[in-house]
């Protein structure tokens, strides 16, 4: 554990650094998408890359998401390693046919002869006051598609590590970047080599004994805050940050729930048909005899994403999480 005081860096800066390092290390890495070149992306994640690597490696594409991902497939077939930026979560939907029918299947379809090392970056989630079509939590669509890896960072260091791992992967990886964490800061030294996290490992962000909050992406800081607030109620909550939805780290999650005996899954995505149902089922299948209460879910409502002036009612917040923790049948202990 280093004790050197580090300069604070944002998640966006860490992502930029990951792209720059990947492009420097491997000349086959190409960045492509809408406004990623001259402008540096609407979130400035690709800032400076076109200048440094040229317009052939940082490609401002026509405005057409199916075309962007479809041409990325062809580029990957020829041996390049495209990193595609979808400008916003809900703008990625036109690319779904390419994603589902080709990107996710090409390795399988060709018996491994033609894997597609494509990274698809998707800024996702709400809480930034975005107008309609700018705040969707679209992870359920991606994780329901076999053949894709799906990761989502919650910290500055993980943003770097997971994006590097995604680009290095020979399989397609969807990197869901929590928009409202783009400007979150952390002590992180961009001058030093950084760890590249293997895809598929969850991490315990906060150790606790009373119950486990299972979460990922934009809900991780909310759960950390809830865990701090819970100490006033006498609850010592553990927080598991999944980091990777596919593959899913059953081991870390189950080990935590076996220790605590109680679990709440927290995510922004709508509850019905959302990842929480899958996670609750997996926990129950593995930890049934350790559970003191049913696994609960705190999720976005089953509604189209609300207008910005109402979104705070939709997003899982500290109070709603603590209410759920309070419903974990504590009376059974007495």
């Amino acid at each position, binding site marked *: 554990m280093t004790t050197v005081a580090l300069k604070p860096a944002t998640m966006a800066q860490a992502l930029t650094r990951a792209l720059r390092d990947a492009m420097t290390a491997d000349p086959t890495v190409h960045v492509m998408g809408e406004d990623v070149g001259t402008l540096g992306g609407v979130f400035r994640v690709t800032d400076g890359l076109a200048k440094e690597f040229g317009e052939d490696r940082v490609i401002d594409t026509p405005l057409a998401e199916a075309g962007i991902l479809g041409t990325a497939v062809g*580029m990957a077939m020829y041996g390049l390693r495209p990193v595609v930026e979808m400008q916003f979560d809900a703008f990625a939907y036109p690319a779904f046919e390419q994603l589902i029918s*080709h990107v996710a299947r090409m390795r399988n379809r060709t018996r491994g002869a033609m894997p597609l090392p494509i990274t698809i970056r998707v800024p996702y989630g709400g809480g930034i006051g975005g107008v309609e079509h700018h705040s969707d939590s679209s992870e359920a669509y991606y994780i329901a598609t076999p053949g894709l890896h799906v990761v989502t960072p919650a910290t500055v260091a993980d943003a770097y590590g997971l994006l590097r791992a995604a680009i290095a*992967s020979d399989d397609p990886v969807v990197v869901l970047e929590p928009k409202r964490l783009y400007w979150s800061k952390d002590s992180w030294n961009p001058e030093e080599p950084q760890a590249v996290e293997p895809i598929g490992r969850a991490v315990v962000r906060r150790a606790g004994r009373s119950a486990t909050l299972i979460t990922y992406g934009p809900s991780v800081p909310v759960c950390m805050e809830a865990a701090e607030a819970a100490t006033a109620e006498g609850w010592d909550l553990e927080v598991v940050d999944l980091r990777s939805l596919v593959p899913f780290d059953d081991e870390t999650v189950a080990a935590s729930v076996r220790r605590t005996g109680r679990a709440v899954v927290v995510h922004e995505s709508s509850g019905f048909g959302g990842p929480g149902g899958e996670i609750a089922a997996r926990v129950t299948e593995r930890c049934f005899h350790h559970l003191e209460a049913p696994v609960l879910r705190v999720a976005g409502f089953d509604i189209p994403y609300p207008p910005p002036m109402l979104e705070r009612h939709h997003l899982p917040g500290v109070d709603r999480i603590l209410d759920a923790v309070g419903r974990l049948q504590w009376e059974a202990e007495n």
Partner: protein
Amino acid sequence: MTVMEQRGAYHPTPPPAWQPRTDPAPLLPDERPYRVLGTDSAADVDPALLRRLYAELVRGRRYNTQATALTKQGRLAVYPSSTGQEACEVAAALVLEERDWLFPSYRDTLAAVARGLDPVQALTLLRGDWHTGYDPREHRVAPLCTPLATQLPHAVGLAHAARLKGDDVVALALVGDGGTSEGDFHEALNFAAVWQAPVVFLVQNNGFAISVPLEKQTAAPSLAHKAVGYGMPGRLVDGNDAAAVHQVLAEAVAHARAGGGPTLVEAVTYRIDAHTNADDATRYRGDAEVETWRAHDPITLLERELTERDLIDEAGIQAARDAAETMAADLRERMNQDPVLDPMDLFAHVYAEPTPQLREQEALLRAELAAEEEGAH
């Protein structure tokens, strides 16, 4: 005197002069489909090429009839025949260099075979033992693509990647008339033109998207005209005239290879058979129409040219037919053998490394197979 006049003359800055991006005239297709056979320009074609095209057409027709027969015998799950369209299929394969790439749709197994793919491997998808029965990189034939027009952006991306790497490679992508209504057709052509990618799009306008005729598909003057809107040349060609299709495609490929960018070629042809063996074409078209097109058969057209000009004799025709029969017999024999399947392959190629979840499911299937095996003894 007005206030404005007192302050001095008001000279609004004129907007920048509008200029057309490009002159559309050279991009426009011919008024009639371009033809070679039966015209004066046929004399300019190398007789060896005509004979080669003829042999390939005869072999292609036999391949189509054999695959259709195998479907009736239950050896193929389904077969979308290209009978009547062999001139397009064969020419598309023959104009490419070895280093080039072909992007076929599900109706284009013949083009893949004409490019050198083993017919059994080309038919694996339609037999149903695996989706793609070949390594696409071996013959540079992309997987047969079922979702319409979705292979077109792949061709553009591959061609662009080749150019970025400095490779002298052209991609040729096949699509049907129905596919031109898909969004991916539009996006692929737009990307190709913007990037000036070395790619050629061949639309085989065979008259029908399953049952829907062209007039319900588009209001464009011709499908070739669509090229103009993207800023690339459109070419209209008689799709049953193998020499014409070959010439137009060869020119488009050479243009792309020289850095001239993409071309859209519309080949006007006809799907003689139903959409697939599962389709009933009598529900949407009459016999008279089919007979008109049978009279304009690609093999008949070329055979007439060759015999009238004494470029082939009876023995030459017989040799082409014999070679086709040999191919058909070999295909029949090999397709009548049951493919050897390993159910564990289901998990082998989902990811480079199976996820823990897939490993669990793999173990489940392995146990089921073991129990089956035990029960069989």
